[in-house]
């Protein structure tokens, strides 16, 4: 498999949220605004990248029987790092994301990549894979965040779009929880209809 394919597979074809439907909890919970979605995506990408890296490095030394606990330990280390990092440098974002930052640790996307890819492939491939999957996750969250923020708040990254009058009475529904479910449902339906076929 070419390096480019490894990278793009996680980004598009096997996009965690929009195609594989994993990692849904943070995707729905933190996509109320572009900033939250993007921030969450980057945090997850960070964890994914470094856990892939470490696990790939250690892959020959990990005994098979205890590999899952070790993966979890590695992942939780990086989750703790990003947790404290955001708490220190991005307190607003950290507050908005709440419990979902430490919960990156149970994101099946990350453990899944460790098990299925990083523990079997070279370091460089593992980095590419981690980046691809992580950025795919970020992409999905950013798309959802964009749609929900524009419709539900009338802004993009806080800047009003569609004029002030729309900002005064936007579709608040979209930033509420039913809006999150609705948007991802529509996105998934559109992907099923237009994109899925071509990729296959």
């Amino acid at each position, binding site marked *: 498999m070419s390096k480019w394919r490894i990278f793009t597979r996680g980004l598009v074809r096997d996009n965690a949220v929009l195609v594989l*439907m*994993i990692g*849904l*909890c*943070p995707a*729905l*919970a933190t996509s109320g605004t572009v900033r939250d979605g993007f921030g969450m995506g980057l945090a997850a990408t960070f964890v994914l990248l470094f856990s892939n890296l470490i696990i790939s490095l250690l892959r020959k030394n990990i005994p098979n029987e205890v590999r*899952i*606990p070790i993966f*979890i*330990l590695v992942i*939780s*280390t990086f*989750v*703790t790092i990003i*947790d*404290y990092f955001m708490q220190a440098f991005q307190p607003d974002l950290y507050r908005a994301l*709440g*419990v979902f930052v*430490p*919960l990156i*640790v*149970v*994101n*099946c996307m990350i*453990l899944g990549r460790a098990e299925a890819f990083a523990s079997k492939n070279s370091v460089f491939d593992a980095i590419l894979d981690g980046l691809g999957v992580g950025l795919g996750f970020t992409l999905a969250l950013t798309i959802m965040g964009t749609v929900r923020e524009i419709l539900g708040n009338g802004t993009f990254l806080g800047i009003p779009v569609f004029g002030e009058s729309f900002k005064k009475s936007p579709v608040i*529904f979209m930033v*509420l*929880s*039913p*809006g*999150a*479910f*609705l948007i*991802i*449902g*529509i996105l*998934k*339906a559109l992907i*099923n*209809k237009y994109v899925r076929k071509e990729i296959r």
Partner: protein
Amino acid sequence: MKSPALIFLGAFLVNNIILMRFLGLCPFFGVSTAVKIATGMGMAVIFVMTLASWITWAIYHAILLPFDLVFLRTATFILTIASLVQLVEMFLKKSYRVLYNALGIYLPLITTNCAILGITFLNIDNKFSLLNGTVFALGTGFGFTLVIITFAAIRERLDLAPINPSLKGYPISFIAASLMALAFLGFSGLFGLT
């Protein structure tokens, strides 16, 4: 400080774990194909969630806080829950065969259920006492069960409907969940809870 009854209702209906907090979505979509299965999953979640909230509360207050190891919270909690599930499974298999047969197949799935871990974190973040934490876990577990069973019944009906092929499966389930969440907005502000 809110009374335990309000904590229970808040966790059960107002801030429903699935529809409002977006935790436990994987089992919500994955294990809601039939009412019977959803009931088993719900029961297992109530059980494990309560146990997990006790144990993590104890670990946090007896070990992590006194020894200034709070930064290990994420790692210890997830490992605790994973081993707890294993232990519970073994224990049930040996001692409570009936319960094991009912919940057994759902227990391994629970390890990756972010709802359990999420609740243990929220217990700590909300500075709940053991009682309140238990009530919170129970309320959340019942909320999870109610919603997943209801959703399973809805999906059983959706299976019989002439739904457009590109909407079948996940998309229509999401839209159904969206309408469910919309209905649950009716509980918002109940007893002044938000």
